[in-house]
C-alpha cells in the first residue's frame, strides 16, 4: 500500500500545482504510515529528484515522447498500470485541466472511489472521508470513499506547499504506451500571463470600469502586484476581456491569497467563484454593493481615482522593503 502522486508537467517543467499535490500526498502518506511516491510522464527537463524535498521517497518516470501531450486515454492506462505495479491504493492528482482530463479515467479503470475537487486532507480516523467544494464554492461536502482504491484530485491553491529536505530516487518505469487516437494539430500557450487558477493575487474588473478602454489602470495594478487578471461575467460576455478571464459560478473558480475586485457588484454567481480567496478587497463606488458583505477590506470610492493611487502606494511599499 502506498500513495502515488501524479506530477503534472508542461514543456518539461513541473507545475506549481504539482508541488501542492506532492506536499498533500506526502502528508496523507505519513498520516497513514505508508510510502509516498510520485509519477511523472513524458520528457522532463526539470530536476525531478529534487522534488524529494516535498516528501516523496521515489519518483517513477515513464519517459516516452508519446506522453508529451496529455491524452486522457493513454495517460489513464499508463498511470493505472503504474499504480498496480507500485502497489498504490491512493492516487492523487491536481484538479487542474490535466487532472480534469485524466483522474476520472484512472478512477474508472481501477474501479476506484473518486473525490474530484478536494480541499483538505482526508479524515482517516474512522473510514476515509474527504472534504470537497460543492455548489461552486458555496459549500463543502464530506465524502466517504468506500472502495479499496481511492483517487483524489485536489483543488489548486487549496493546500500550502511545504519544502523540506531530501532527494527522491528516480525509477525509470517501462510501460508500453499506446499511440494516442487524438491527433494534436496545434498548441496555443498563453505566454507571459500568470494562469488564473495558480495565481497568488488576482485583480478583477467589472462593469464599473465602463469599457475595455479603461482596463489600463487595472493592468497597471496587476503588473505592480505580479497578479493575474480576471473579470466578471458581463465583462466577458461583452468581450471587453477574453472569456477565459471570467471568474464565477459558470466561469473559472479560484482561491488566491488575495482577490481585488474593482467595480464588481458581487452577484451570488460571482461570489461562488471567488469566495475561497483568503483575503478579498472590494473597490466600488456603491456602498450598497453586496460584495462588501463578502469582503475583508473595502473602499467605497471611484475606481478611476482609487486604483491608480493603490498602484502608487504598492510601488512605494515595494521600494521601502
Amino acid at each position, binding site marked *: 500500500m502506498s500513495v502515488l502522486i501524479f506530477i503534472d508537467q*508542461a514543456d518539461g517543467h513541473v*507545475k506549481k500545482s504539482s508541488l501542492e499535490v506532492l506536499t498533500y500526498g506526502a502528508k496523507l502518506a505519513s498520516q497513514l504510515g505508508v510510502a509516498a511516491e510520485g509519477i511523472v510522464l513524458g520528457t522532463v527537463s526539470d530536476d525531478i529528484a529534487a522534488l524529494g524535498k516535498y516528501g516523496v521517497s521515489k519518483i517513477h518516470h515513464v519517459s516516452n515522447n508519446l506522453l508529451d*501531450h496529455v491524452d*486522457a*486515454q493513454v495517460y*489513464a492506462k499508463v498511470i493505472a498500470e503504474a499504480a498496480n505495479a507500485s502497489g498504490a491504493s491512493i492516487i492523487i492528482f491536481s484538479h487542474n*485541466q*490535466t487532472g*480534469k482530463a485524466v483522474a*476520472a*479515467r484512472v*478512477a*474508472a*479503470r481501477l474501479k476506484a*472511489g*473518486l*473525490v474530484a*475537487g478536494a480541499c483538505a486532507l482526508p479524515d482517516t480516523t474512522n473510514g476515509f472521508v474527504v*472534504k470537497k467544494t*460543492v*455548489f461552486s464554492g*458555496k*459549500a463543502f*461536502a*464530506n*465524502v*466517504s*470513499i*468506500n472502495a479499496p482504491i481511492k483517487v483524489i484530485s485536489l483543488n489548486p491553491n487549496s493546500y500550502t506547499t511545504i519544502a523540506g529536505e531530501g532527494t527522491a530516487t528516480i525509477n525509470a518505469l517501462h510501460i508500453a504506451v499506446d499511440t494516442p*487516437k*487524438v*491527433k*494534436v494539430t*496545434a*498548441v*496555443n500557450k*498563453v505566454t507571459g500571463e500568470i494562469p488564473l487558477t495558480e495565481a497568488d*493575487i488576482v485583480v478583477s474588473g467589472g462593469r464599473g470600469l465602463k469599457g475595455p478602454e479603461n482596463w489600463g489602470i487595472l493592468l497597471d495594478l496587476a503588473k505592480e502586484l505580479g497578479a493575474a487578471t480576471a473579470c466578471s461575467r458581463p465583462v466577458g460576455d461583452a468581450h471587453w476581456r477574453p472569456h477565459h478571464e*471570467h471568474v464565477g*459560478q*459558470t466561469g473559472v473558480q479560484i482561491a488566491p491569497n488575495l482577490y481585488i475586485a474593482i467595480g464588481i457588484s458581487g452577484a*451570488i*454567481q460571482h461570489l461562488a467563484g471567488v469566495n475561497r480567496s483568503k*483575503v478579498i*478587497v472590494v473597490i466600488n463606488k456603491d456602498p450598497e454593493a453586496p460584495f*462588501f*458583505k*463578502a*469582503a*475583508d*477590506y*473595502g*473602499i*467605497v470610492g*471611484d475606481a478611476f481615482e482609487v486604483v491608480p493611487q*493603490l498602484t502608487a*502606494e*504598492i510601488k*512605494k*511599499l515595494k521600494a521601502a522593503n
Partner: protein
Amino acid sequence: MKILVCVSKTPDTTSKIAFTDGGTKFDEAGVQWIINPYDEWYSLVRAIELKEKDASVSITLVNVGGADAEPIIRKALALGGDEAIRINTDSSDPYYIAAQIAAVAKAGSYDLIFTGKETIDYNGSSIGGIIAELIDVPYISLATKFELIGTTATVTREIEGGEEVAEVALPLVVSCQKGVAEQRIPNMRGIMAARTKPLKVNEPEAIEALTNIVSFELPPAKAGVKLVAPDNVAELVRLLHEEAKAI
C-alpha cells in the same frame, strides 16, 4: 449519426445554499431547478446545431435522476432533443452515475457523447471521463470548439496554460464549456412538440456506488468588512501588508 447528450438537474445559479437534517441534506425549499448550464448552453445547443446542418443526426438526452427531473428533461426536449431516457435513480457518486450512462451508451452505440464540463452542484468534472473509460473511447475534456466533418471531429480544448487543437475520429466523449455554442431560449413550437416526444424511464443497472456524501458544511462567515476612506489608500496597503500579510 447518433448523439447522446447528458443532462443533469441542478439548482438555479441564484439559489441560496442551505442544508437540513443536521447538515446531511440539501435544503430544496424555494429552490428553482434548471438544466445544468454547461449541459444546456453548450453541449445540447451544439448537438442541435449539428442536427440543423445534417438532418440524419438524432439526439437522445439521458438523465440520471428521479421523476422530479422530468420538467428539466422536457425543457431540454423543447430546445431540440428527439427523445429522452431517464434512469430512475439518484446518487452523488460519479462512478455510479457515469456507469449508468455508459450502459445506455453501449446499448445504443452512439457516435458522440456530450457532457457539460462540470455540474454546478457537485463540480466534479468527472462524468465524461468515466463514461469514456468504461466504453473505451477517446475523451476530449473542456472543449471550447467542436467541428465535425464526416466522422472526424476537430476540437479545441483547454489545457494547462493554454489550448490545443486536435483531430479525432468518432466515437468520442466530449465535455463542453463556453465557446462551443451560445445559449438558446426554447420557442413555443419546441415547447409544444416536447410534450409528445418520447421520454423513456429505465430502471438502473446493478452498479455499486463507490462513494457517498456523509455531510455538508457552509463556509465560515466573514468577520465583516473593514472600510478604508477613499482618500487614505495608503492605509489599505498598510493593512494588506501588516495585518493580512497578503502583499
